[in-house]
């Protein structure tokens, strides 16, 4: 009998062998790692293992229960597919960063104490920043830097929270937290990864800038670990629940306004994470199940969407909806899989999103939160609209000039696999239920009222799309186009979203980048800032200009001696 190791180790240690391999053996090795991970998961037994005493704390590297096991299975499966998809990438560095990223996310999932959680959390932040940087273009370098800064700030908040918690409660184990400064700081740290408003700016900023293959890894791990961490420490927290609802709506609205395909999907990540956070915030068994089920489903279809859009970008070199279109005939597999993903994310009956959204909505109805329920319903409509738009303008609208072929097998194979999984879990929800953290207590997804309700929403939204297709046509002046929408009767909605809310969003975006700019200014010449008031221009820092006479330093030493002795004499 082989003893299982924390799955994180397989990937983190495995990453260091990648640079020594080449060609086929490397590809085989990359695929071997997730398989080893699966075997390892299979060997795990429930309970706490790998307890290590470190710095007078009990660290738990392997805390296995239904929730962490579920997340482990999900992460390794999606990781396998993402590795398959990126198998052709030549640069070793990208593989190393991706494996470290994956391994550290698994580390977070299985850590039973905040210390090791933080440890993996930080590796995750750095590894993911490298994935963004690997695109090696100016915008992605800058975006990666902003991403890293925000995550280090979040990490700082998390660390302070953890230390405060350890000092005040004396235990370091991961557990549900009660209100207080420590838990607030930890919530900020977790929430930043889960893209809580207004800490979300890094997500739409950085994800579209990553490499095509990298953005798949990104869409999987960071936000979902955030959600998982929330489930561990903040389940049943009202704030988290309504934050989730707000995120679901917010993400969808701004996804509707995007022209860049990957930016559109990035805003949808915020929206989908909102669903999960809402489920966790409600905190009943059904809602947590729903949140986790939605997380699993979301990983499937969101990965599929990123892969599909990645294939489109890979084969055509274009990423704006205005430049795409007419690909249905040229890339049929990509087209069909994307449609399946869109239907799943919108929650159409028969697809997996339907099941998990149903669970979430029912749990909210049961626990008496009609407001939250309607926030999510509205977000559903928006999701449907935005993906109808995405599919229509990528695949079905007329475009004679576009040249493309179907993507290579290593890209289509994982896409088809995931599409089938989306259908499978949609039709046999039992499959999904079997891995959920709480035993499902007689929840039936396919009740007539639920199906009819969803279909009604779809019919309504679909007819809006057909009537107002012109309004959705993507242009660079797309936000103006939204006017059309509100002339048709959604006056207040449109007015609010394009007006004050959009302004607020842009302001937050600009705050975060101007914060970085100010730091940059400070970094150019801190002494110059003191002089700047006089002439308004910043002199480049030059040590020779600011070098002071030696005597001043000597005087300082003597003054300090005088001061010290004065203070000592007075105080004693």
């Amino acid at each position: 009998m082989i003893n299982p190791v924390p799955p994180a180790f397989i990937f983190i240690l495995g990453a260091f062998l990648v640079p020594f391999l080449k060609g086929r053996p490397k590809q085989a090795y990359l695929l071997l790692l997730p398989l080893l991970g699966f075997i390892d998961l299979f060997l795990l037994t429930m309970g706490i293992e790998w307890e290590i005493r470190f710095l007078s704390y009990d660290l738990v590297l392997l805390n296995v229960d239904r929730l962490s096991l579920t997340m482990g299975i999900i992460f390794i499966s999606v990781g396998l597919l993402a590795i398959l998809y990126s198998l052709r990438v030549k640069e070793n560095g990208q593989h190393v960063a991706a494996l470290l990223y994956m391994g550290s996310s698994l580390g977070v999932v299985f850590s039973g104490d905040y210390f090791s959680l933080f440890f993996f959390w930080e590796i995750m932040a750095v590894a993911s920043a490298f994935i963004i940087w690997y695109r090696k273009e100016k915008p992605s370098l800058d975006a990666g830097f902003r991403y890293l800064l925000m995550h280090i700030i979040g990490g700082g908040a998390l660390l302070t929270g953890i230390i405060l918690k350890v000092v005040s409660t004396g235990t370091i184990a991961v557990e549900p937290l009660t209100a207080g400064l420590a838990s607030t700081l930890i919530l900020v740290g977790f929430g930043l990864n889960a893209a809580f408003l207004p800490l979300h700016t890094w997500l739409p900023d950085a994800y579209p800038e990553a490499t095509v293959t990298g953005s798949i890894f990104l869409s999987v791990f960071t936000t979902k670990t955030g959600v998982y961490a929330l489930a561990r420490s903040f389940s049943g927290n009202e704030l988290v629940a309504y934050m989730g609802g707000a995120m679901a709506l917010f993400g969808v609205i701004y996804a509707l306004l995007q022209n860049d395909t990957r930016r559109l999907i990035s805003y949808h990540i915020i929206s989908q994470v909102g669903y999960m956070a809402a489920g966790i915030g409600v905190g009943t068994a059904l809602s947590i199940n729903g949140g986790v089920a939605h997380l699993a489903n979301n990983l499937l279809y969101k990965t599929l969407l990123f892969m599909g859009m990645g294939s489109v970008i890979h084969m055509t070199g274009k990423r704006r909806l205005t430049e795409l279109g007419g690909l249905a005939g040229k890339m049929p597999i990509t087209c069909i899989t994307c449609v399946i993903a869109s239907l799943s994310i919108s929650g159409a009956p028969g697809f997996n999103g339907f099941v998990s959204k149903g669970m979430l909505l029912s749990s909210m109805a049961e626990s008496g939160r009609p407001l939250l329920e309607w926030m999510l319903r509205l977000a559903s409509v928006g999701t449907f609209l935005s993906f109808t738009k995405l599919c229509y303008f990528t695949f079905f609208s007329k475009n004679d000039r576009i040249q493309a072929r179907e993507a290579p097998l290593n890209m289509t194979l994982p896409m088809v696999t995931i599409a089938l999984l989306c259908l499978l879990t949609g039709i046999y929800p039992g499959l999904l239920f079997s891995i959920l953290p709480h035993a499902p207590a007689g929840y039936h997804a396919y009740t007539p009222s639920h199906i009819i309700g969803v279909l009604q929403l779809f019919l309504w939204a679909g007819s809006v799309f057909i009537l107002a297709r012109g309004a959705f046509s993507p242009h660079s002046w797309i936000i103006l186009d939204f006017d059309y929408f509100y002339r048709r009767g959604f006056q207040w909605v449109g007015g609010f979203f394009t007006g004050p809310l959009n302004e607020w969003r842009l302001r937050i975006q600009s705050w975060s980048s101007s914060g970085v700019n100010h730091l940059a200014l400070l970094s150019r010449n801190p002494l110059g800032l003191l002089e700047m008031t006089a002439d308004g221009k910043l002199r480049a820092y030059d040590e020779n200009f600011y070098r002071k006479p030696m005597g001043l330093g000597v005087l300082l030493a003597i003054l300090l001696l005088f001061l010290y002795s004065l203070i000592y004499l007075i105080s004693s």
Partner: protein
Amino acid sequence: MISSPFPVLIIVVPLISAFLIVIAGLIKKSLCYPLMILSLSASVLSSLAILNDVLSHGTVHYRLGGWPPPWGIEYVIDHLNAFVALIVSAISLLIGISAKRMVERDFPGKSAYVYCLFVLQVTGLLGIVVTGDVFNLYVFLEIASIAGYALIAIGEDGAPFASFNYMIYGTIGACFYLLGVGYLYIVTGSLNMADLSKLLPGLQSSKVVLMAFAFLMVGIAVKMALFPLHVWLPDAYTYAPSPVSALVAPLTTKVGAYVMIRILLTVFPPSFFIETVPAALLLRWLGGFAVLFGCIFALAQTDFKRMLGYVLIAEIGYIALGIGFGNRNGLTGSILHILNDGLMMASLFLIVGAITYKGGPRKMARFTGLHGKMPLTMAAFVVSALSVVGIPPTCGFFSKWYLVLGGIDSKQWLFVAVLLASSLLNAILFFRVIEKAYFEPSMDEQGVDRKALNPTGGQQNILSNKVKIDEAPLTILIPILIMAAGVLSVGLLSGRIVSGIIRFAIPAHF
């Protein structure tokens, strides 16, 4: 009482071989380097032996010339200085190994003298660490400093002036220290640390003792470059030759920090600097300012080596902060940081040395594409940089963890915030270098036409511009890699280091 010959061997072997190196250099130049490595290895082995003795039997004493203290000079080694001595000797051995190629290329014909000064510098530093006598400490302080002035002065343009500058400040520091010792001697009539620690508790209200304390604090602050008396540091360490800055930058300041801890905890009763006079308060504030000042000014630098100088000022600030918290966690953080910072700073300065040895740039703006040219060096750089930022599992995280704990224990929220803010600033500092070195295309790929930059250049000039940068020679590369591995393994072992060594280095009642 345990008596053992190793304490004196640590000093005597390098001291004697420093002069043998010069003599050997007159006979045969190639003998000098092996002789230096041998003597430094002997110091490492003796420190290991002592650490082993201390761990198994407790404090080790050695009486010079057999004179009993307090009349004779005594070397006393407990957990604290056994730990610091090992750090100093091991890091100087690694730097010594790497010095060969750099010294022999930059100072052909004078290498024997450079090696001699190098070993003398190490002797001085180790002497400061092992001695149990405050005046003897001053002697070693001067040995180390004078060797340091000479070593720094042989550097590039600007080095003689920087060294002169350093000498003025260093002399003030040493002078203040000596005055402090003199005042103590007036009151107690003793120079032995153990003896002083018995005599001083009754004399705490004496004005002379207070003045002595003020002199000592300011003097040591100059030596360890604690803000605002750091002014000599950036110039001196930027212009010094690479192997020299790799030796003096991490070690001299750390030894200064050791002296401060020793004076505060052993010579004076620990309650003195916390309760009797507000020395801890002053250290906290100066440390906090040092951290912020160092980080912000490091941000403004364009020269990588100079930036490291300012980072070093910030790191000294951490140690001062930890001492200033005046509790067990804070002191643990400070003592652990002596090790961690010694390792990571030595590694970073040596990496600069490796880059410049290969004709690479020192301006950070020109680091583009270095990753492809020196992959191993840059990998080591990333590890050390992560450690300065304080990202687990590198060692820098653990000392910061203890420092933050110390801050929380003493309810100094402001300084906890400073510690966390400095992590952010350090992240900006180092990640922008990493980003440059790894992800921005190198100058050549950007299509800079070398000839266009060099219109008058003949064959010679074009060739010299096409310096091919690749990995540094093994004698430089291996120490770098060992230190990077050390940064990681010390991080993973920090639990053991704290519970096995540092726990005993702090007085029990803390």
